[in-house]
C-alpha cells in the first residue's frame, strides 16, 4: 500500500519535472522523485540501495545545478508538434506491447526464483563472514563486477577531464602568445 503511494508520488514528480518551464524547478522535482525512489527501496527491504540512492541523488542535484546555473534560460518552443508527438507515441506504444509480452514470462510478484541467490543466502555467512548478504555478494562472490565498476568510474573521470579541459596555449617566440 505504501509502495503504491510512493510510486504515485514518483510519477507525479517526474511528470512535473518533465513539464516544468523552468530548468531549476525541473531539477528539484527530479530530486524529489529520486528521494521517493530511495524510500521505495527501503520499503522493498533494500537498505544498502536506499543509502546509495540518497548519496547519488544529492550528487545529481549538485551536478545538474552546476550545469544550468548562470546560463540564460531561454524558453524553448517545440516545433513540428504533430510529427514529434506521433513518432513519440509510436515508440512508447511499441515498447508497451513488447513489455506486456515479456511480463508474462517473468515470475509473479512476490515469488522470485531463488536459484543462485538461495545458495548465496545459505553459504554467505559461513564463507565470507559478512552478516550483510548484499555486501558479501558485491565484495566476495561478484568482486570482479565491482572491480570493473571501479574501472568504469575512472574511465568516466578521464572522459570528463578530456571534454572539459581547455586547450593550452602554445608559446610562439615570434608573436609572443598565440
Amino acid at each position, binding site marked *: 500500500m505504501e509502495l503504491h503511494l510512493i510510486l504515485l508520488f514518483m510519477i507525479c514528480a517526474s511528470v512535473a519535472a518533465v513539464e516544468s518551464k523552468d530548468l531549476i524547478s525541473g531539477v528539484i522535482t527530479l530530486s524529489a522523485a529520486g528521494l521517493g525512489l530511495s524510500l521505495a527501496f527501503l520499503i522493498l527491504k533494500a537498505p544498502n540501495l536506499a543509502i546509495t540512492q540518497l548519496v547519488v541523488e544529492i550528487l545529481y542535484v549538485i551536478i545538474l545545478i552546476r550545469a544550468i546555473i548562470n546560463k540564460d534560460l531561454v524558453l524553448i518552443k517545440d516545433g513540428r508538434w504533430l510529427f514529434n508527438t506521433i513518432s513519440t507515441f509510436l515508440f512508447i506504444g511499441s515498447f508497451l506491447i513488447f513489455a506486456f509480452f515479456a511480463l508474462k514470462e517473468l515470475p509473479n510478484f512476490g515469488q522470485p526464483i531463488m536459484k543462485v541467490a538461495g545458495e548465496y543466502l545459505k553459504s554467505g555467512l559461513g564463507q565470507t563472514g559478512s552478516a550483510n548478504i548484499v555486501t558479501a555478494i558485491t565484495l566476495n562472490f561478484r568482486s570482479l563486477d565491482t572491480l570493473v*565498476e571501479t574501472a568504469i568510474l575512472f574511465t568516466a573521470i578521464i572522459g570528463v577531464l578530456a571534454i572539459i579541459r581547455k586547450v593550452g596555449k602554445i608559446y610562439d617566440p615570434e608573436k609572443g602568445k598565440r
Partner: protein
Amino acid sequence: MCFVLFSIGLYCILRKRNIIKIIIGIVIVEYALNLFLILIGYRIHGRAPIVAQDQEILNMVDPLPQAMVSTSIVIGLAIIVVLISLAIRIYEKYGTFDITKIRRLKG
C-alpha cells in the same frame, strides 16, 4: 506502474529539445529500470538480507538484484556526469541548450 514511469522518461527523451530536459529523461528511465529490477526480486513479507540471530533464511528477499542494482546506480552517475560535461561544452561553444540551434553538426 513502473512502466508508466519508464514511458514518461522515454517521452521526455524523444519529445523535448532542451539538452538538460533530455538528461532529466534519461535519469527518470534509469530510476524506473532500477525499481523494476528490485521489484522482481521482492518477496511478500520478506526480510532484508541481513543475517541475524532470530531469523530464518527462507524468508529473505532476493539479494542478487540488490547487489547488481547498487552497481548500476553508480554507473548511472558516471554516465550522467559525462553527459553533463558534454552539455556544458556545447553551451560554451554554441551558447544554447536547444538541440535544433546547433547548426554546425548538420552535414
